[in-house]
């Protein structure tokens, strides 16, 4: 007993447990899900989803409490506002994406129990990635996130496109994480064996070994740009997004991007401050090409999910401007605000697509024609979310983009902001194309809308009324956040302001 006591007291001095309490709650939720599924032998699977939702909510509550009272900390985790905000974002993403995925998984008649398991583990990986300051923890949590995402994308195993998507995702994420690891090994070697990010900065003689640090930066950029799907590393995004089941794509498009953003910002801000001119130019180039490529190719797409994949590539291009424009008085406020709004816009759009594909089974943009006649609520909310993505006032997407571009212009990134404005106009074109298609009457009789009626009755008889409202709850939440966040912009900016480190 004496040994255990001394061990626990030494443990408590190295890791302050109250700071990782949200993650511990998620881990407890994960283990509870596994054990409950084993005990129940596959029946009553909705209970597992409830466990997931409860644990995420409790975790969010504790994180909120910690956000208000910032606890200073050491070693493996630092607890500044930047990291906490990202953990909060990832929890929001997990929560809303599970809300909108329950119906889909029930309908497709695949086993229900592993889905919340993978979602919790991916959320956990993302959360630990947001506050790790240690090369080893960063790598393990990144692999955790990537592996769980890969399993999620291959979840509907009867669908060939889903198999192809998860295969591509696995191979390319393996290649990119090996490149990241090589960059890390160079940092480890040249800083004489240090693994903590702060100690690496202390010990590396930047002036003497500049070419090697540049090479290490290039490898780390290649590794993280894959997760962010920046320009030359975006090849996996459309195929994986088109093949995976829709709620999984919703989860990917926000969680892994948010986690990768926090990793990218921390690594490049902490380790390579001497190289800031060089990597600024490279990242600016990548951002400009992502914006141009994403928006131009999205115009020609015929599948809704693929179009959203290309549009998310361009959104990341905009967010990169926010990273480059960070300065002392405003911190990363523009990037954080836009990320917050982007989460709700994207999840809202995917919620409506999930509902539509549950009712009609197609993903083609042409089949959305005349939706206004059949389901005005769905049409109206989809219009709101698409306009917010495009950046039309008075929705919150406009305010987010305005702040972002204003910051970028103030920081001197004139070319990037000009390109971003032009490509925003192009993006408004393809969003409005879809809206026009939905709102106008069709001339030819469309079969899909006939099956719309049949499916709706089938679905509503299978699922209990309590569940059917979970997607709608997610929809309403995202719609409200997409429109009203614009009004509450000031407090959000004030919170995200002192995040410079």
């Amino acid at each position, binding site marked *: 007993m004496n040994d255990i006591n001394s061990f626990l007291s030494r443990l408590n001095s*190295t890791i302050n447990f109250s700071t990782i309490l949200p993650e511990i709650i998620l881990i407890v939720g994960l283990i509870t899900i596994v054990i409950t599924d084993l005990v129940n032998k596959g029946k009553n699977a909705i209970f597992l989803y409830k466990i997931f939702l409860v644990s995420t909510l409790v975790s969010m509550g504790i994180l909120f409490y910690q956000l208000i009272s910032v606890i200073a900390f050491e070693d493996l*985790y630092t607890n500044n506002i930047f990291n906490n905000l990202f953990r909060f974002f990832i929890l929001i993403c997990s929560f809303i994406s599970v809300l909108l995925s329950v119906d889909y998984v029930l309908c497709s008649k695949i086993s229900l129990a592993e889905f919340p398991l993978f979602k919790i583990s991916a959320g*956990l990986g993302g959360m630990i990635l947001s506050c790790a300051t240690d090369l080893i923890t960063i790598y393990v949590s990144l692999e955790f996130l990537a592996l*769980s995402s890969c399993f999620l994308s291959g979840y509907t*195993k009867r669908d060939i496109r889903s198999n192809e998507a998860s295969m591509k995702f696995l191979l390319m994420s393996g290649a990119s994480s090996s490149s990241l690891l090589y960059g890390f090994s160079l940092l480890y*070697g040249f800083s004489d064996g240090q693994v903590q990010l702060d100690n690496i900065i202390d010990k590396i003689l930047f002036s003497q070994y500049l070419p090697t640090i540049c090479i290490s930066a290039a490898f780390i950029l290649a590794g993280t740009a894959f997760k962010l799907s920046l320009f030359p590393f975006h090849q996996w995004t459309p195929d994986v997004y088109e093949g995976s089941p829709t709620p999984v794509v919703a989860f990917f498009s926000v969680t892994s991007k948010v986690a990768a953003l926090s990793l990218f910002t921390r690594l490049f801000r902490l380790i390579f401050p001497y190289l800031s001119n060089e990597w600024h130019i490279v990242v600016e180039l990548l951002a400009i090409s992502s914006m141009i490529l994403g928006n131009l190719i999205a115009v020609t797409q015929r599948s809704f999910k693929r179009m959203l994949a290309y549009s998310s590539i361009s959104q990341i291009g905009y967010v990169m401007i926010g990273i480059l424009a960070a300065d002392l008085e405003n911190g990363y406020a523009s990037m954080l605000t836009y990320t917050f709004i982007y989460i709700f816009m994207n999840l809202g759009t995917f919620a409506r697509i999930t509902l539509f594909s549950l009712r009609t089974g197609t993903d083609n943009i042409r089949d959305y024609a005349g939706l206004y006649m059949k389901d005005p609520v769905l049409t109206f909310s989809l219009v709101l979310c698409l306009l917010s993505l495009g950046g039309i006032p008075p929705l919150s997407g406009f305010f987010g983009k305005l702040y972002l571009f204003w910051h970028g212009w103030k920081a001197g990134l004139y070319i990037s902001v000009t390109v971003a404005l032009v490509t925003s106009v192009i993006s408004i074109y393809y969003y409005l194309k879809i809206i026009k298609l939905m709102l106008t009457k069709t001339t030819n009789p469309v079969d899909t809308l006939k099956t719309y009626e049949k499916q709706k009755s089938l679905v509503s008889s299978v699922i209990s009324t309590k569940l059917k409202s979970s997607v709608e709850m997610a929809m309403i939440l995202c719609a409200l956040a997409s429109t009203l966040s614009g009004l509450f912009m000031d407090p959000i900016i004030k919170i995200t302001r002192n995040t410079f480190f």
Partner: protein
Amino acid sequence: MNLSELIHEFILALIEPGILVGSIGTVSFINTANSAFSLGLVFTCISLLYFALNADFIAAAQLLVYVGAINVLIVFAVMITDQSVSSDSEKCGIGYFTALGACSILFLTIVCIFHKLNDFYSSSIHQSEYLKLNLFEQNDVQNIGYQLLNKFLVPFELASLLLLVALVGAINPARDED
């Protein structure tokens, strides 16, 4: 050079061609089973290299994990799948030359880094500190165990959760649905 350094150089000169031959064999054998076995040769030679670098725990772990588990799995997988007779379509198209160029640039990068590392580790300040560390009397395994539960506790526990999720995820696509 005294005798111990000479023996060290000799052992390294034996191991390194083994790695080279094994890796060339892995990529260029037509029969996939031969490729899998030469991959086993590469892993064994790397573990011998770890022995020569005085990292005994890592060498044992490499032998157990890579050779004993991963390579055996690869050989099983290769032998279970059907071997179609591969055609000799060795077209030297543009993809071939692009890949050749990219790989040679990568190789030159790595060689340049090795030169810099050589400068780094042979500077006199570093050598005196290195001798002070007195590596030969430390107990490797005990040290690793201590650090795993103290300094690296979070990645260690996270890796165990990762194993759990990987197990569930590997069985999930492969099992029978009723």
